[in-house]
């Protein structure tokens, strides 16, 4: 396996250079460089045939073509919004894309400033003064919020309360994140798509270290009792963590104003739907600054007195604190955060609020149209909602969803007679077609 064989196309060595370098190192061949006992040496083959660039593109293209072409009316925590072209073109500049964590800030001012701007946008959207510059996704950010709660708790409690409608993935990740602590996760009931305040009140005591709520909820409902939830948490000195996303945050109640201590969530901006790949948000109150998980970019000055940016408070992090770190996160979603910041900047305050308000109108209009279809009832609650809502079907929901799939539409199935439909700017132009398809299959 020398360079006269078909080697790595990205290793630039000519045969002569390889020979000269081996000579300089003082070995006869490349194999002699591997200081490996014979007993563990691998002398087999992987059986992976190298292909040309063109062949790989064709191969992957053919594989992906096996995905059905369907119009998605899917949401439940993962939302598609149109991403302006500027985002792709500017974020793909190689100085951003091919860089790494900003350990040398003097040559990484560009990325650091963009992340500082991202943090600042999150501060504006949440009203909380501290935001980190990314977690993997909403689920892991929620897990980190719980471990933060266990570090900052005043009481001896171990209970974490989450809504019964919490997404399966978020619940499982949360359970795993608290596996190393003595925290336990319990559900509180939901009523009509919102937190059941009475039932929750009965569950609360001073053993609760974190209360988690979402706005909007996974059913798309806007949580109407946020301030009450905040008060309830405050009475029991419980960390109040709120799940949301930037589009919702641009119009809904500001988390800080309802007493939220931490905000987590999936970003929903900056990326196409990528099978769940996302960007975890994390913002919190100032007093938790030294307990925050993840990377923080701070402003400072350089030798010329000009403002400059750097990663800061790294003594919290795993490479310094090791097993006592606030989190194990190292590689995060920095480039996705850059894209999210670009997307928010592209929209501006008017554009972002207009997007959110449009989603409310799209969803209302679609719900009204579906409610007019025989065999459908939408929405099934009296709440306000953003982007999505449940639809009751007279026919079995699974069969309706399957028939819709044959017609080229994807919707969620919640239970025997309940579907959920999500509409944003990405699919708003297909709502008439969806209604027509429902008319075919729902009777």
């Amino acid at each position, binding site marked *: 396996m020398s360079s006269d064989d078909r080697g790595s196309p990205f290793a630039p060595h000519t045969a002569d250079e390889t020979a000269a370098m081996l000579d300089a190192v003082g070995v006869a061949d490349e194999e002699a460089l591997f200081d490996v006992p014979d007993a563990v040496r691998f002398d087999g083959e992987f059986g992976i045939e190298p292909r040309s660039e063109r062949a790989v593109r064709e191969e992957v293209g053919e594989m992906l073509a096996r995905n059905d072409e369907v119009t998605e009316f899917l949401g439940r925590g993962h939302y*598609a919004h149109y991403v302006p072209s500027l985002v792709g073109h500017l974020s793909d500049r190689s100085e951003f894309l091919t860089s790494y964590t900003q350990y040398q800030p003097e040559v990484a001012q560009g990325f650091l400033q963009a992340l500082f701007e991202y943090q600042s946008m999150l501060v504006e959207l949440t009203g909380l003064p501290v935001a980190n510059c990314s977690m993997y996704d909403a689920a892991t950010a929620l897990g980190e919020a719980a471990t933060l709660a266990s570090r900052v708790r005043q009481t001896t409690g171990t209970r974490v309360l989450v809504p019964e409608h919490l997404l399966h993935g978020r619940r499982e990740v949360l359970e795993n994140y608290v596996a190393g602590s003595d925290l336990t996760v319990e559900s509180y009931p939901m009523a009509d798509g919102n937190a059941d305040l009475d039932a929750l009140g009965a569950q609360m005591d001073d053993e609760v270290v974190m209360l988690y709520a979402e706005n909007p909820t996974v059913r798309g409902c806007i949580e109407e009792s946020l301030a009450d939830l905040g008060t309830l948490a405050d009475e029991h000195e419980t960390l109040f963590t709120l799940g949301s996303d930037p589009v919702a945050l641009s119009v809904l109640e500001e988390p800080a104003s309802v007493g939220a201590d931490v905000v987590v969530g999936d970003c929903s901006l900056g990326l196409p739907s990528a*099978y769940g790949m996302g960007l975890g948000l994390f913002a919190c109150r100032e007093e938790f600054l030294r307990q925050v998980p993840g990377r923080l970019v*701070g402003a400072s000055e350089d030798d010329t007195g000009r403002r400059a940016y750097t990663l800061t408070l790294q003594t919290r992090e795993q490479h310094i604190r090791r097993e006592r770190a606030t989190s194990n996160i190292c590689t995060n979603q920095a480039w996705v955060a850059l894209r999210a910041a670009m997307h928010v900047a592209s929209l501006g305050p008017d554009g972002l609020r207009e997007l959110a308000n449009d989603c409310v109108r799209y969803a209302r209009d679609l719900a009204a149209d579906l409610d007019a279809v025989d065999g459908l009832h939408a929405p099934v609650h009296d709440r306000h909602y953003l982007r999505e809502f449940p639809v009751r079907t007279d026919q079995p929901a699974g069969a309706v969803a399957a028939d819709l799939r044959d017609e080229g539409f994807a919707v969620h199935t919640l239970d025997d007679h309940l579907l959920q439909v999500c509409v944003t700017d990405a699919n708003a132009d297909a709502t008439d077609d969806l209604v027509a398809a429902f008319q075919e299959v729902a009777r």
Partner: protein
Amino acid sequence: MIFDQARWTDDDGERYEPLLSEKRSREVERDDDDPLPDDLTRDSLELPDASEPELARHYTRLSEMNYGVESGPFPLGSCTMKYNPKFTEDIAADPAGHVHPDRPDESVQGVLELQYRLQDYLGRIGGMDAVTLQPPAGAAGEFAGILVAKAYHESRDDERSEVVIPDSAHGTNFASAAMAGYDVVNLPSGDDGRVDLDALEAALTEETAALMLTNPNTLGLFERDIERVAELVHDVGGLLYYDGANLNALLGRVRPGDMGFDVMHYNVHKTFATPHGGGGPGAGPVGVVEELREFLPDPHVRTVDDGDAEGGTRYETYTPAQSVGKVHGYQGNWLVLEKAYAYIARLGDTGLADASAKAVLNANYLAEQVAYETPFGPFHHEFVASAGEQDAADAAKRMLDYGVHPPTTKWPEIVGEALMTEPTEVESQRTLDQLADAFNAVHAEDDETLEAAPERTAARRIDQVTAAREPRLSWQALDREE
């Protein structure tokens, strides 16, 4: 090499490229036409309000004030900063792969097929029997792998409390083990920079759930006694965990599975050349031996055995019988996984093996050329030099002036004033010679010069102490001060 990084300042030259909020910002108030009632909505929102041309210039300027692999050599030890081919970006941009994570299996056969094939490729490369793609980064992979180990022990009614980790290991190892609820037992390195077998024997007990090890280790040294290490760990009933951060040194030469490792993670963004994106996203798939397969995260991808299937093999997701559950809300960083698959397919057996051969050759060649002392050896993909009397951090700042991204500094602590250097296979002999020239020029310079560096970068030396002492983490915090 001649280097001067772009330096954009405002009109007065008093500050670098202004923040977006300083260009134009706008506060938007609630409007009577808004569709939601007052009591559920916020009063106002203030955000930057720049035009598209202004934004294009802003981000172009910021990019010019940033250094990536395509700007120049980036020998940051343990980070494997190698060139990322361009065609993988086109693959990840294909809208056919842009699907919602709640799509049913039958409607995303293409996604599942690629995931299945990548699971298979990674299994072959690592000598592992099963691979999950879910963890969204290397540390998330460590966490998932340790959860799998924990579930395995618990399934045998054999709860254990400790994970043993060498002092030279990546910091994430310690943090991941602690997150899973384990006490960490520190294993001091031997005089040759490798695992000290006596110290290992002393550290291992009936409480040992696992030993977390990277091989070659962070000094670039291969743990030659790996068979004995595996035997000792297995003798006490522990599992051997492979930290895949340094896998680029071994492709096609040694497989973790063949060395006796039971569970491992792959940093696909490192070894399989997907861009690191300024700190992420990455992906940290986890491979396991057969005995651990049923503990893998939920879901896992498998083929469906139905003899009369039309249109080729069918794929489905399923929950392994004793799954640890999930470590990511969905199925990890899909676009990164697509790029990793494409890279592996492009190189194949011969390309992957050659990548390691050249990565190891480059590290040894560069180690040979630099004037700094390079203790231990022989090296694999990286070497740790000592800045000696110089301060490693200052030396690194000076290297910036020579147009190279410096090595990882002051770590691992086994070597005083460490300069941990990993050139990777993508640098040519000529570039390595230039790198060596830069190292050697800095080696010859006095402390005064080093302390004044850098001069040619977008910003001059940044005050880290004040940044930490008086944290200002948003433009709102800056506004408050003014």
